[in-house]
């Protein structure tokens, strides 16, 4: 029995860091080859499906929105049905600035959209994140509904139910024009913004801050017991998530040149939640997979058989809730693990 006391000063060589567990942790954030696939696919899409660029743009905006929700829900464990509040805050910021001819430069407008959404995020986060469970769910719902009603009431500014049409968006870098008939600019612009935001999110996830969010989600009491300032972390995470959702909303307004109350709708918030869970939350790429699958199916089915689409979606959700809680990526992981086990066994 060793009588070595713990802990002595750690060795200064990287000796201990050579342990396989340590190496895993150190290399966790390294880029894997398949992480380039979504971007290659997006680039290929541009050339292969030039008639579907509008759909592609819409898809990428949805991915960004779902990514923002994943930060709050998948990593910090904040269950919210009101995330469209931030999407709408960003959308209306861009819309109001453009419609009333105050500011039309797209990239700085997006930054302002992010700021506005972050303001809503930090204000609501400070107040709401004291609560949990059903109470929190209700509060996020009511905040979003409140914003929607407010936008409706201020219809002189916001156009109310009809919204703000024909927004004037200045060309990107003064050169690339937004043309509704040729959505090339919209597509590439959105792709670039999505890429930048994704790099940011990925860095955040793999940082110590991201790790502590996982800790909060996995075991809240433990995090309190190791001295983590839980509420501060949650509010920061919520605010960043809100800012990203605001950018998605701003993009939506810019690429559609139109804003209306649907930006703040429960339908939108519920849909992005469904998309994220279908793809797999807390897995960074769940947003990509879920959004692509959902929007593709919706595009083909909902138009032709809307009722059948609703029925199918309902059945799918029930099945996922019971058997595939971790979504498509979760299922993929299970299958991959079984495949690996079978290979090593044989």
């Amino acid at each position, binding site marked *: 029995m060793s009588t070595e006391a713990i802990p002595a000063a750690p060795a200064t060589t990287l000796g201990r860091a050579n342990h396989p567990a340590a190496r895993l942790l150190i290399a966790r954030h390294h880029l894997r080859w398949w992480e380039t696939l979504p971007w290659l696919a997006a680039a290929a899409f541009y050339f292969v499906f030039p008639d579907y660029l509008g759909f592609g743009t819409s898809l990428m905006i949805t991915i960004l929105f779902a990514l923002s929700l994943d930060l709050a*829900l998948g990593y910090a464990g904040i*269950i919210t*049905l009101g995330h469209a509040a931030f999407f709408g805050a960003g959308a209306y910021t861009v819309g109001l600035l453009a419609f009333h001819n105050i500011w039309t430069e797209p990239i700085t407008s997006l930054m302002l959209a992010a700021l506005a959404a972050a303001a809503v995020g930090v204000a609501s986060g400070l*107040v*709401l994140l*004291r*609560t949990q*469970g*059903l*109470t929190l*769910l*209700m*509060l996020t*719902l*009511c*905040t979003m*509904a*409140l914003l929607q*009603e*407010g936008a*409706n*009431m201020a*219809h002189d500014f916001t156009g*109310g139910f009809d919204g703000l049409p024909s927004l004037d968006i200045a060309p990107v870098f003064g050169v690339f024009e937004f043309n509704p008939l040729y959505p090339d600019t919209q597509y590439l612009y959105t792709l670039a913004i999505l890429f930048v935001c994704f790099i940011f999110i990925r860095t955040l996830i793999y940082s110590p801050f991201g790790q502590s969010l996982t800790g909060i989600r996995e075991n809240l009491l433990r995090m309190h017991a190791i001295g983590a300032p839980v509420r501060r972390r949650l509010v920061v995470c919520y605010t960043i998530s809100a800012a990203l959702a605001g950018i998605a909303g701003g993009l939506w307004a810019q690429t559609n040149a139109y804003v209306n109350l649907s930006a703040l709708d*429960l339908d939108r918030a*519920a849909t992005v*939640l*469904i998309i994220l*869970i279908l793809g797999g*939350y807390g897995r960074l790429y769940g947003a990509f997979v879920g959004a692509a699958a959902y929007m593709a199916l919706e595009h083909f089915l909902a138009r032709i058989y809307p*009722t*059948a689409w*609703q*029925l199918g*979606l*309902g*059945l*799918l*959700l*029930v099945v*996922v*809730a*019971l058997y595939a*809680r971790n979504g498509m990526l979760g299922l993929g992981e299970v299958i991959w693990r079984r495949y690996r086990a079978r290979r090593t066994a044989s």
Partner: protein
Amino acid sequence: MNAAIDFASILLGGLAAGTVLFIVSVGLSVTMGLMGFVNLAHGAFAMFGGYIIVLAMNRAHFGFPVALALGFLGTAALSVVLEQSLYRRLYRAGELDQVLLTIGLIFIFMATLTILVGPQSQPLQLPSELGGQINLGFMQYRTYSIFLIVVGALIVVGIWLAFERTRIGAQIRATVDNRRMAESLGINVDRLFTITFAFGSGMAALGGGLGAEFLGLDPQYALKYLVYFLIAVSVGGLGSVVGVYYASLLLGTLDFILKLYLPKGGTIFIYVLTILVLLWRPQGLFGRKSA
């Protein structure tokens, strides 16, 4: 004198609306307080039951009381089937999974009713005894509204008595209070929940049918009013029948008044009020504070 009559008629209108809200929501409050299960599909049960009641009267020409009974029993039966096959599996699961399951059920209900009955609104033919106006002494008012208010009051008293005086009521109260303790006392919590869930869903059906006249009844019902049911339940306090009664009456009256005087965006005040109440008392007005 006229102002008093105006005030009274607004109040009565609001109370009637609130009563419908209560009848639908009481089941949700008790089951959520009992099992902690986030059942967003509760409105879908109300819709389903409402359809049974209205169709029984319109197409099969059953009388009002018979139709109500059919709606109650049919929905209760369906809820038992769903509870045993689906809900039961997610009792220990997180909120997210429960939300997902019940949203899926909402879509299934909505689509099924659209396919079977059609997307149009189903009108409720009131029985002649309940139509027209009734003399209240100082004024005349819609008979049906008074009927609703009275029925609602009877229901809340009845349920309250059942909770306080019957054995099963005591068991429910004990389980809401402290589930583990109740289990160790030998209370069959699973069976209790099935019974309560069936009863709550049956009540929702009654609410859906009785309220069809002014809430309307179409396949969108389950989603349209979901937020209201959730507000009534969370503001009132999970598991408190009295709580959801007061909250429903308050909510119904407020909404009625706002629709009258501030039709464009008046509901913002309801959301503000809900937020303020839930921030002040996260457990609801009559809910229990978890230590």
